[in-house]
Structure formats: structure tokens, C-alpha cells
């Protein structure tokens, strides 16, 4: 796919990600639906397949999930440069797109977090700061367990194995992490092997 990106298009892309950064409470993944609306539906800068694979690759790759944003910017740049086959020109625009989207999604939220947490730390003995931190603790524990559940459930699509296999694997993984100090990479490797052999 080939698209034309003027300088004001790049600026609009940057502005969109700056805004999404401030809305990304509890992670950039919650803004994926809006990114889809903006990049695929409204502007047609990414194909459906490019968008979906950007998220999927970031989920499977090591590192913070927010890197899916980098892949989206990279793909917009590659499209603007006339596709991967266009060579150096497309790669340079890919890096430009990657920089624009990553700086956009990171800059506002990290700046706010930096100053807000400093304030919170200086005032950590105040009643409202303590109430906030301690009151949120059980909410966070519930969120973590729910996130694990939702992530595991997302792997049912495309599998021919019974769904309980998947839950068994996720449950055993949780139990092993809870009760042992086995390195997590062994567990992920075992999951990959079980996938290849058709268990999940």
C-alpha cells in the first residue's frame, strides 16, 4: 500500500498520539480502538492487516506492550515511502513515523507521571495520599488477576484444541510462578512447545 503524507499529516499524527497519551490510563493498550479508528478507518494510513499484526507482534515480542505503537508509526512511514521494496527512502520514513508515534505516546504521560509521583512522594504522609495508595491496593490486585484472565482468553481464537486446555495451561503457569522461583522464560518456552504440538 502507498499513501501520501504531507508535513501537516505528520503533525496531525503526532498531535493524535500526544492526546491519546493523556487518555491511556492503565496502559496504551486501552487506546487501541481509537488508534484503529484514526489510522485505518478515518485516514486510511494503515491496512487492517498492518494494524492487527502490529498489536500481535508486540504482544508476542519481549519488552513493554506499548511498542506496538512504534510498529504502527513504522508501517505508516513505510506506506508513505512506497512500501518496503522502495528501499532506503521508505526505511527513513519508517523511522520518522516510529519516532513521531513513540514520542507522542510517551512524552505527555511520562512528564505528568514524573511530576505527580514526585509530589506524591514528598507528601506521602498526608492522609489523602496514603488513602489513595492504600485504597487502590486491592483494586490493583483485582486488575492484575483480571488482566491475566483477559490475556489468556484472547488466545482461544484460531485454535482447534478444547478451550479447557488453554485454561489449564494458564492456571498451571500461574501456580508455578506463585509457588516456585523457576525462571519465567522456561514457562514461556514450554507454552510455545505445547502450542506447536497442538495442545492449545
Amino acid at each position, binding site marked *: 500500500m502507498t499513501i501520501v503524507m504531507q508535513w501537516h499529516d505528520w503533525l496531525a499524527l503526532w498531535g493524535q498520539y500526544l492526546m491519546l497519551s493523556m487518555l491511556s490510563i492503565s496502559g496504551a493498550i486501552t487506546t487501541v480502538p481509537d488508534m484503529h479508528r484514526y489510522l485505518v478507518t478515518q485516514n486510511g494510513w494503515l491496512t487492517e492487516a498492518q494494524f492487527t499484526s502490529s498489536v500481535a507482534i508486540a504482544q508476542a515480542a519481549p519488552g513493554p506492550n506499548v*511498542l506496538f505503537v512504534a510498529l504502527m508509526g513504522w508501517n505508516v512511514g513505510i506506506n508513505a515511502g512506497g512500501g518496503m521494496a522502495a528501499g532506503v527512502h521508505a526505511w527513513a520514513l519508517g523511522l520518522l513515523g516510529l519516532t513521531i508515534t513513540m514520542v507522542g505516546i510517551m512524552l505527555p*504521560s511520562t512528564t505528568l507521571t*514524573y511530576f505527580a*509521583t514526585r509530589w506524591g512522594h514528598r507528601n506521602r504522609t498526608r492522609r489523602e495520599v496514603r488513602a489513595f495508595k492504600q485504597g487502590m*491496593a486491592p*483494586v490493583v*490486585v483485582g486488575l*492484575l488477576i483480571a488482566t491475566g484472565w*483477559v490475556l489468556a482468553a484472547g488466545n482461544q481464537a484460531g485454535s482447534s484444541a478444547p478451550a479447557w486446555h488453554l485454561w489449564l495451561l494458564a492456571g498451571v503457569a500461574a501456580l508455578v510462578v506463585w509457588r516456585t522461583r523457576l525462571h519465567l522464560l522456561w514457562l514461556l518456552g514450554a507454552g510455545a512447545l505445547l502450542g*506447536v504440538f497442538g495442545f492449545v
Partner: protein
Amino acid sequence: MHSASPAAAADPDRPRPLSTRDLFVSFTWLALQGFGGVLAIVQREMVEKKRWLTPEEFLEDWAVAQVMPGPNVINLALMIGDRYFGLRGALAAVAGMLTVPLFVILGLALLYAQYASNSQVAAALRGMGAVAGGLIAATGIKLVPQLRMNPLGFGICLAIVAAVFAAIALARIPLGWVLIVVGGVACGETWRRLGR
């Protein structure tokens, strides 16, 4: 720029990062182990192995990182880096989280373009995804004992955990609402109890 907190500075025996380079390398290594998200690794590395954070601090910091906009694990890295080395530490920790993984993910995207149609690749990713879900859930389960110290009381805390789980995982209610309603009630009640 230095903001070593009294809590961190008070105990000289407590493990801490040696330098901003140590922060960068530690967070790079941490990020590279985090398939399908880094959270489970953060707890394993920061709390259990390096012991830069106690479980209580992890839970409190994680609550803040979660509620602030932006990627949670990036916010957490920023907070830990800032605590020991100020702005330089924050930048080193965040750069460690992002730089090398960014090159890895670009390499994977280029590879993926060739193997996208291979069903065994998809199956392996599926198995890893199921395990990754289990890892994150276990991170939450491991924090449950910390709630015994909470001013709300252990029983109310468990009820909140169950309510949040049901709202997010089962009912799929948007996170913003859950945070405002359940989080608001929990913080309000904690505030009231702290004042007694």
C-alpha cells in the same frame, strides 16, 4: 537533581542500583525477559531478586503507575529510576525499557512479514500467550497477603479484588468506570478509616 527518599536512604544495607548504567542495564535485561508484557518480570526482578522494592512498595508504586496515564511498566521504571538518581535515573530506566526491545521488535516485524502464514508460528504464539496470562494473574495473587496490613481490613479487600475481577474480566466494563467507582469508594473509605 537528586531525590533519594528517606525511606530508601534510611537503610544502608538495603540493595539499591549502583549507577544510572546499572539502572539502564537492569531494565534492559528485565524488558527482554518480558514476553507478552513486562509486569510479571518486574515483580520477580525488582522485588524478589534485586530487592530494590519491598512487596508493600511494589503494590503502592504499582497502584500509582496504573492510575497515571501511560504504559504502567514504563511509569514504574520511571518512578524507580527517579527515586534513586532523580531525572537522570528516570531517563536511564525508561531508555533501558525501550531502546533494545525496540530494535528487537523491528527485527521481528521484518521476520514476521515472511512467516506470517506459518500455522506453527501462530500456535507457538498462542501457547506463549496462555502462559503470559497465567504469569500476570500470579503477580496479582502473590500480592494478596500484603492486603492483610491494609486499613480496610482483609475481608473488604478480598471483596474489592473479586468485584474488580468480575467487572473487568467477566462483565468487560470499561476500565475508567471501574477505577472511578470501585477505586473511589475504596479510597474514600480508606481516607475515613485513616482519620479515626
